[in-house]
């Protein structure tokens, strides 16, 4: 079956935020009343919506993961990660207090390396879990590798990437992309990925060129200021340049680089005779980032308005001469509660809608060309993972 084409792309996002809103709202409510435990089921409901509204060729994807799996994953991560770390911290503190700072230092270094290794492991397992729970035409993906090899590779390649002043970071990240994707399969087919890191170096060079440029401009401003009477103005200009550099220029370079990285890596992925492509340009990424920022601002502003309204109400009630202290307490307590709620509700919606936007962005810019032979696309024989990406979550890296 031929796919793609100018009028009908292989991937299509079919969701809308009005349909997603009730999911986000009820997820928020249930997450609050369960002290956060519901968030695993909330994530599952979100993904069910995202996947079910993502059309690939002639049918939507299906998310088959369960909340309970994510919950177990988080419990495992808690024991694998948190318990040993707390134990090691106590041990290190004991060693320092008992005059063994060198041993404590070595222990700290080993812990740090181990954590790094675990991040690689978590990235692999997270991808593997998501593919194994993604179903299309009743067929799912997965991997038979445990991810320990990838984790070791992640550890040393990342370190090597940083050693020559960070110049090999694109090499490390593209190699790691290839390694983890080529360990994955969908149905009977293995993924193939051959990104070329040299294609990224021009944009990566911006990270080195821009600071030099900023230094020259800043130095120039200071030098020119020396001639003028008010060198305060020149100092301010230099400070302004610094702010401009860190808050505007650096994020934009990161975006420009990441746009190239996503195009290069995703664009190199093949599955049987399918070839994938990712079309988002830097300007698309910029719009995504600005939109996400706007959602944050909107939530904070709505929260602030709510807080002012309820705070003002509380202050009004407690004024006016003789007030029964019990009444005053109830007023203060309830207006405090309303202030917290007026912040909590908009902020609870930020996460879901950022994930919504990110997923929709990802799908809108995904393309695929080639053929899919449905009869050859037989069921995956990869072993099913029993727990979700708790470890990835624990590192705060869960993207969707």
């Amino acid at each position, binding site marked *: 079956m031929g796919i793609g084409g100018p009028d009908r792309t292989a991937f299509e996002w079919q969701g809308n935020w009005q349909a997603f809103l009730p999911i986000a709202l*009820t997820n928020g409510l249930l997450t609050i009343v369960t*002290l956060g435990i519901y968030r695993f089921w909330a994530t599952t409901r979100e993904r069910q919506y995202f996947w079910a509204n993502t059309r690939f060729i002639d049918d939507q994807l299906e998310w088959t993961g369960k909340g309970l799996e994510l919950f177990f994953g*988080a419990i495992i991560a808690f024991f694998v990660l948190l318990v040993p770390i707390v134990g090691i911290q106590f041990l290190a503190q004991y060693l320092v207090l008992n005059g063994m700072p060198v041993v404590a230092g070595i222990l700290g270094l080993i812990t740090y390396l181990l954590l790094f290794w675990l991040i690689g492991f978590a990235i692999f397992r997270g991808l593997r879990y998501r593919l194994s729970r993604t179903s299309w*035409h009743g067929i799912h993906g997965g991997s038979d590798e445990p991810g320990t090899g990838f984790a070791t590779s992640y550890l040393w390649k990342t370190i090597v990437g940083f050693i020559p002043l960070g110049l090999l970071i694109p090499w490390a990240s593209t190699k790691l992309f290839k390694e983890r994707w080529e360990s994955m399969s969908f149905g009977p087919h293995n993924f193939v990925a051959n990104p070329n890191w040299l294609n990224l170096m021009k944009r990566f060079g911006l990270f080195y060129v821009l600071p030099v440029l900023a230094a020259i401009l800043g130095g120039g401003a200071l030098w020119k200021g020396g001639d003028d009477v008010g060198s305060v103005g020149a100092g301010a200009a230099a400070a302004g340049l610094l702010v401009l550099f860190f808050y505007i220029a650096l994020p934009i370079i990161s975006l420009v680089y990441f746009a190239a990285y996503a195009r290069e890596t995703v664009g190199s992925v093949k599955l049987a005779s399918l070839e994938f492509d990712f079309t988002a340009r830097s300007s698309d990424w910029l719009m995504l980032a600005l939109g996400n920022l706007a959602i944050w601002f909107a939530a904070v502003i709505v929260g602030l308005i709510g807080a002012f309204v309820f705070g003002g109400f509380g202050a009004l009630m407690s004024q006016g001469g003789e007030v029964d202290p019990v009444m005053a*307490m109830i007023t203060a307590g309830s207006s405090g509660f309303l202030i917290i709620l007026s912040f909590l509700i908009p902020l609870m919606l930020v996460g879901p809608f950022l994930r919504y936007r990110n997923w929709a962005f990802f799908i809108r810019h995904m393309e695929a060309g080639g053929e899919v032979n*449905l009869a050859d696309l*037989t069921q995956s024989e990869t072993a099913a993972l029993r727990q979700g990406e708790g470890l990835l979550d*624990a590192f705060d890296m869960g993207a969707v």
Partner: protein
Amino acid sequence: MSGRHPVWHYDGRSAVRHDATITYGPQGFEMAGEGVAFQSHRWADLAYRGEKREGALYGLKSDAGWQIGLPDPLPDDLRGFLPKPQRYGGFIDKIGLVPASIALVVISAGVIFGAIKAPEIVAPLVPMSWERAMGDAMVGDLGGRICETPESRKAIDAMVARLGSKGEPVEVNIANIDMVNAVALPGGKILIFRGLLQEAKNADELAGVLGHEIGHIRNRDVMVSLLRQMGLTVILGGANPDMAGALSSLASASFSREAESEADDYSIKLMQKASVSPDATAGFFDRLSEGEEELGQAAEAFSYLSSHPMSEKREKAFRESKLPGARHTPVITAEQWRAIVDACANDPDVKEGSDLMF
């Protein structure tokens, strides 16, 4: 068999999509179509898998890959036979979103109440030696921020001895931190901040505060607070790492209002026994309460919410605790008091502390 409905079907072996028809009745259904092996299934074997744009998806409990989709609209009788859709999951779908939310709020409130109350029962059972080990590990020597001279050490010891609290020894130190405060820490440790010494006019003022902190230690309030914080961190943190830190420290950083009042009572009793005048401590609270007066009615309301009783009330409690006919003497000599106040200035190798620590 009572009706027929079109379905789409994936067998889970290959990606080929089959269009088929089911013929259904109260017990189950039969499916037939081109390229589909004729098969019959009971409703009980079917599981809801989710909603697709064309209609709901159902799978077989015994076969993870097998699925059928039923295009909308569904006839009512068919809808009645099919497994109920799952929206929120588990028991929430069974009893409904609102009743489930109310039940969950009650359970959550109970769990938090338990985490706040249980430490009061558990804390006294923790051996003091454990608490001491914990205190040593957590506090150490405060990174060299403790002010001490031989004279100040003697003076503090004299003051603690005069107050004569019965029980395991307490360890009182002066911290080189510019805050008007004193804290009780795990393992019977008390820290008096330099700012408090500068604010206090004489040793008797400090005696009331010291008695108060000793009261916290005797009542095991420190352990209660520690257990409370650990409990809340585990409960809230298992699921919500980002919110846990902020919330649990908010809920447990300070002692409860009851604990504060009891520590005041303890301090008053110590001073009565030791014949130390409570007037000075009362005067100290009087000076602190001047700041609160401006808040007026609002301060009254906030004292219910905040952990410390209002200085005004504490002042009254101390002032009225004077026993008739009691003869008071200063808790320590003026010289000893000077040694305490000047400890930080006279200690040559003390480090300056940041007030952000507490």
